[in-house]
């Protein structure tokens, strides 16, 4: 492998990792606060991807269609998430966790089939928008600009989330509810509203990932399960509920997959599984998580 190939592979690995980070961090925050494992999170990402295709083709005549989509699609996904939380999830918080899993599993089927119904079974593509299309030379090597843009987005969202949690009143409220729901409630925090808000935030992040992914890849059915499995690996590696853990896990997974392809092309995903198994043996609570 030449240096150029290695650098290119690393870059594309990290940029895929960044998109996965956006999804996994949403899963992780929702779990941390609501104690709900949203199995349908990958489907929410997929809905974001299809909405990206839908909005960009509907707005094709508007200049900067992709950038409008980047604002609108994640918001639409967040609204969908809000509806799911208010209409469905809210009714089963006091039930056995088993029912949460099964309910969100049912959502996977409903969202997947709805996408199939609306957009069909074919592949859809979205081209990278100005000014992040094409390639850029760095140190004599050429990189796709869009990958750099994705990495930028991932880092900005990561820092933004850290700042939100640490320095704002909203973040304090979320942390309070995460830490002790009853006490936060007694101190006047509107817990149901925080729950809805956090769920919408998680879905917004998944929607953002779904909107950012299509120019680098394709919009297709079945990406929901592929992505949710990768997110599970990330949160097991990084530790469920941890922000930096999701970031670290996503970068590791992205790089592993990118370089794994060179070693055994078909079983690249096996490396991620092996790492996950290793972590489970050595440090079952994840790299950045806390022991139970």
């Amino acid at each position, binding site marked *: 492998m030449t240096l150029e190939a290695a650098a290119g592979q690393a870059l594309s690995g990290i940029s895929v990792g960044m998109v996965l980070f956006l999804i996994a961090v949403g899963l992780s925050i929702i779990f941390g606060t609501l104690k709900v494992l949203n199995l349908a999170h990958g489907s929410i990402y997929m809905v974001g991807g299809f909405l990206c295709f839908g909005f960009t083709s509907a707005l094709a005549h508007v200049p900067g269609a992709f950038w409008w989509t980047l604002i609108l699609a994640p918001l639409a996904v967040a609204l969908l998430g809000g509806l799911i939380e208010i209409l469905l999830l809210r009714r089963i918080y006091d039930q056995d966790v088993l029912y949460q899993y099964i309910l969100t*599993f049912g959502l996977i*089927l409903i969202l997947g089939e709805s996408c199939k119904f609306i957009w069909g079974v074919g592949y859809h593509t979205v081209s990278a928008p100005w000014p992040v299309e094409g390639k850029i030379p760095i140190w004599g090597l050429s990189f796709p600009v869009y990958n750099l843009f994705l990495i930028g987005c991932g880092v900005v969202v990561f820092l933004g989330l850290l700042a939100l949690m640490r320095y704002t009143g909203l973040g304090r409220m979320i942390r309070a509810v995460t830490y002790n729901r009853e006490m936060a409630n007694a101190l006047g925090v509107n817990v149901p509203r925080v729950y809805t808000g956090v769920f919408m935030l998680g879905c917004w992040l998944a929607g953002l990932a779904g909107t950012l992914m299509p120019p680098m890849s394709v919009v297709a059915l079945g990406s929901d399960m592929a992505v949710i*499995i990768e997110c*599970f690996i990330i949160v097991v590696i990084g530790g469920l509920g941890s922000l930096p853990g999701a970031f670290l896990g996503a970068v590791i997974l992205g790089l592993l997959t990118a370089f794994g392809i060179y070693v055994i092309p078909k079983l690249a995903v096996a490396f991620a599984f092996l790492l996950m198994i290793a972590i*489970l*043996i050595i440090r079952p609570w994840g790299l950045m998580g806390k022991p139970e």
Partner: protein
Amino acid sequence: MTKRLARTFPSHRLTLLFTLLVLLLLVPLILKASWASLATEMLIMALAGCALNVMLGYTGMVSFGPAGLYAVGAYTTAILLSRYHSSFVLAVLGAPILAGIVGVIVGWFCVRRSATYFALLTLAFSQIIWTVIFEWYDFTGGDNGIVSIPIPEFFFTISYCYYFTLAIVAGCLTLLWTIVQSPFGKTLQAIRENPGRTEFIAIHLKRYQLAAFTLSSVFLGVAGSLYCVFSGSVFPDYAHWVKSTDMLVVCLLGGFYHFAGPMVGAMVYILLSKLIAKQTMFWMFFLGAIIIFLVLFMRNGIVGFISEKLASALGRASESGAKEGSR
């Protein structure tokens, strides 16, 4: 209480069981061949559901990966028959053994983490099994699967295949019933009800959970092997998460706090799926809607629902009747 399981096996239930067995024996004689094949599918699904329910309903471990072990069973039989030309008995017996071995290995990793991580891990492991089957063309046939497996000609007649399946499923279910009624089964239920307190009385949680996982894997292997004999072919789809959903829904639909739940669930589910799939290509949408309806409004499934109704009806008649009916 719905969560409390029957300690005894009262006589009216024996009568019911006997009637059911007679009806099942009559199926190929009075119904058309297509119904016999549907009934075979139901029996296999009932066994898979009951096997999963040892984990789900009795031990309270939510597994999203039963299809992986089911596929291990199916592929063991298929590969032993078609690649190694082994005897039929060996091929069928090999399935639960290999599924059990894979179950021990996968289970050992999975029970290291509780609840949420457990669910994640079972899903991830079943996807590993699916990937291996899908990518290992030389051995498993990849996405082409293995077709025209040399099963004995005896099973080409659907009624013989049905009776074979019925015998094996009945035997396995009796065995499972004995196991869940044994002290071991009671311990599993104690773990479901309160893991912390069960540990206080010096029960090694992880060991029992692993035992439940393995037990469930062995019987899932039997179900997979039976399906391979029934259909004469195997495909990677058997290990796919959609198949796991089928099994979970079967348990949920019937009610997983009852031993008979998955059996009733399998019957209703397969009938429903054939009926709805005939009408629409978006069958999964309706499946999802049914799941959400069940979770929101009928958490104890059909058997739970009926026995609650039965309990209140009997309760009006007599106090003791309510106790009996609600089990």
